[in-house]
């Protein structure tokens, strides 16, 4: 998977490294700001109230 991505990035090694870093950061940002906030309320360990 990662090998496939690496082979398909354009440019010389330096350019590939930069693009790869940007891709990783983009994925991390997507997880932190979109995926996790969406997933979180659906998980059970955030209950702090007594049920009424």
């Amino acid at each position: 998977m990662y090998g496939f991505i690496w082979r398909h990035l354009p440019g010389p090694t330096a350019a590939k490294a930069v693009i790869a870093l940007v891709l990783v950061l983009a994925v991390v940002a997507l997880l932190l700001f979109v995926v996790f906030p969406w997933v979180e309320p659906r998980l059970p360990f955030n209950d702090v109230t007594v049920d009424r």
Partner: protein
Amino acid sequence: MADPDQGLESGRTQRWDRVPSLGGPPVPQGDPLWRVLVRGAGELLVTAGLVLLLFVVYEVYVTDLLNDRTQGDLTEQIHDQWDQAAAAPENLVAPAVGQPLAVLHIPRLGEDYSRVVLEGVSEEQLAEGPGHYTGTALPGQQGNLAIAGHRVGKGSPFLDADELLPGDPIVVETAQNWYVYRVLGDPATGDYTTDASGIPGQQIVTPSHVSVIAPTPDAADAAPSGAYLTLTTCHPRYSARQRLIVHAVLDGSPVSKADSPAGPPALTEG
């Protein structure tokens, strides 16, 4: 005649001949299918592990950072509201769900510990700050001012709530007054269960134990027997199996902010 190795040599993919040299040209045909699959599965598992680790970082640190900003905005909002409030004697009404209600100060949890409490205890409000159970008493009123807050993440308002000792002040700031509540129990011995009312200063209960936020804590349906404050959060840390409950009782009459703008002495003790 026939060389036994010959069939092997010619029939199999000689992958040892094709190990890509580092920096060499990409291997066009690549590895046999099973290798590709196993490697792909391995990479997927490693990726899943990293994503889970990142989620822990998000829960424990990132939500705190985000919440810091939210609390900053809420502090501004509630001070604006207080500035507009008339100087008349305080007439507390519960705000709409999601609106700020009061500011909570707990010196034991940090010298400048202050959190804006919102009306309502759904996930939406609790993500912004501690939430006031709708329908429970308002600051200073007879009954039970019940507040829920996250233990870990979302600003972790009640992370160290288990460190509150008997006699510790919990100060609630409203537009015009400071209300000083004190954790029930004996400050001298640290025993939570000495109060004459029978209400403990701290207890750990199951999530279905709703009577802790009853007007008189632990006495469902009874009339209020005093002005109490109750904090609820999850217990143990990182779990939602039980609830940590802290009960406090109003100590003395409210301190007017006009008289002591910097807060009551309880705010700086300890």
